[in-house]
């Protein structure tokens, strides 16, 4: 399905444009409300966050972020008074709630796990995807179409269905709750997307470039390294961001196969609780920090988004 970039000379009238613009902007604003609320809740104090009616104007507070990064214990009035002046903003906020900071929370280690697992699996998936896609694009591989279809069909399995045997297998191999296990699993899931997308990108690079290099005495591997890779770099970068977003956002495998040392941020954030229920400002703060990288990537990716989300079925 190739698309045509030329567009209608039958230009829409000025009025039609105006109405369309107003409706689209209205939709965009409504769709942003939940996101705005996540950011806002993260900067509210707990009483402000659960006030009725919901507060749009409020005094910003760092309490959500403080609670996100620390664990606290409640202390007696006498003990609190016996302590000296608070040194940091977070200590001050905590003391006002009659509590003392007991130590750091698990958010930072979980976030680092997310980074290691997402980047590790992305590197592996893109590396394997690039060489496999090159082979499928340039050589006659026996059963190529069947193999490609098989690679794609692995994405149709519900993650929970995949998790049953993986859980048993990892238990036997000692890979449960390890970063290596998660990297291998995410690589296997992402490699299908990676091969499909990169095959599309590499198909578009004219073969003549490599053939010229081969005639100049390059070996096949040199031609791949020095001619094809630089040409495919945009496609590789776009593919990498897609793999990264999947691994970053993934929840089902993470919650079933990790519990502690290798747990990523998505299963951790919903477990942030304060005294008497969810600590919504802390959840808002944790969610905000978790979402920011993705916002940046979405803006970077916008030109390749269509291709990525359709497994390369639609190209622009």
């Amino acid at each position: 399905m190739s698309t045509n970039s030329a567009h209608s000379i039958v230009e829409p009238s000025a009025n039609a444009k105006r109405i369309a613009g107003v409706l689209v902007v209205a939709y965009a604003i409504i769709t942003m409300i939940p996101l705005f609320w996540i950011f806002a809740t993260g900067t509210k104090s707990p009483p402000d966050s659960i006030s009725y009616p919901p507060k749009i104007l409020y005094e910003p507070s760092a309490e959500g972020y403080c609670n996100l990064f620390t664990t606290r214990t409640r202390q007696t009035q006498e003990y609190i008074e016996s302590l000296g002046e608070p040194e940091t903003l977070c200590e001050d906020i905590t003391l006002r709630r009659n509590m003392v900071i007991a130590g750091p929370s698990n958010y930072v280690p979980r976030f680092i796990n997310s980074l290691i697992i997402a980047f590790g699996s992305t590197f592996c998936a893109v590396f394997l995807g690039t060489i496999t896609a090159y082979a499928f694009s340039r050589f006659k591989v026996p059963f190529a179409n069947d193999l490609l279809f098989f690679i794609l069909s692995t994405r149709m399995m519900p993650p929970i269905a995949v998790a049953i045997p993986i859980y048993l297998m990892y238990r036997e191999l000692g890979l449960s709750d390890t970063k290596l296990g998660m990297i291998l699993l995410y690589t296997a899931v992402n490699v299908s997307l990676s091969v499909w997308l990169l095959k599309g990108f590499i198909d578009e690079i004219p073969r003549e470039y490599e053939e010229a290099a081969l005639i100049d005495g390059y070996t096949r591997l040199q031609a791949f390294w020095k001619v094809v890779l630089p040409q495919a770099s945009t496609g590789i970068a776009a593919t990498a961001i897609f793999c990264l977003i999947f691994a970053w956002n993934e929840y089902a495998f993470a919650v079933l196969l990790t519990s502690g040392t290798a747990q990523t941020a998505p299963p951790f954030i919903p477990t942030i609780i304060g005294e008497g229920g969810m600590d919504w400002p802390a959840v808002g703060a944790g969610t905000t920090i978790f979402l920011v990288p993705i916002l940046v990537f979405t803006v970077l990716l916008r030109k390749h988004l269509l291709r990525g989300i359709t497994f390369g079925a639609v190209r622009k």
Partner: protein
Amino acid sequence: MTNSVDNILDRSADRAARATPDGVARRIRGLSDRAVAWLFVSPTIILLLAINIFPLIWTIQLSFTNYRANRPNAEIKDVGLRNYERILTDEDIWLSMQTTAHFVIWTIVLQTVIGFALAYLVDRKFRGHAFWTTVILIPMMLSPAVVGNFWRFLYQPQIGLFNYIIGYVTGTDPSSFQMLGDVDLAPWSIVIVDTWMWTPYVMLICLAGLRSIPDYIYEAAEVDRAGPFRRFWSITLPMALPFIMLAVLFRGIENFKMFDMVILLTGGGPGSLTEVASITLKREAFEAWRTGYSSAFAIILFVAVFGLANIYVKALNRVKER
């Protein structure tokens, strides 16, 4: 021991090198195309065999047993097709399939209608349309789990923003309805969040469809004096149809597998009213630990997605060829 093996290998390599003519030797050093092809394809195949195919075969094998993962030492009995029989006659499973169907069908209907309408509007090319398109796309890139978790807060009856806005707009009391606790509303609460997240996905694909329609067709219609309504029904819609169908295929597969957003938003409740297939599967496999039984269910789900997707792709190809 290892030394002698190395020696033998070295010696045979030497002999091979001496026996090979010059040109071929260079090709081996540079690797033949065939060797490169295998070298490049095999790591991926090995990974997929280890992490996809082997577990799939294991699942099939387990589905014929009464194995329970929490009792690894218990005797494993071969129960034949009994797991499959029990699943297909289990009322709870059918209820969860109905819940899944409700979720999949309504999300597809809403996302297709709103997504196509948005694409149509964006295609009017008003000023700043590129910027606003990017803004609209943001929700679909976010983690369904993390965002689904936060929607639980938006849906709170007293303090939630969603209830407040709906109450404000309709004039009802925001605490008079519970999106997550009410039997009638809970199935819609997950449809709303999914529609919020994934409408941009359908929009993006529909937009590509609209932009693929060449101008001359519209110009010809202009010459034939076809009205705007006629143009929409006989040009725009049929020509964008393959793209719309593709979007429906991808959304259908994804939502059939839906787990993360729903488990965090409703946890399958109230009761088991929003328990979609993946949640039932998780309950059976990782809470009741009926591994054999849930393996059979996993296979049935996989066959269902695979079968439906294949039938659908055939229909899609027929539309494309028209």
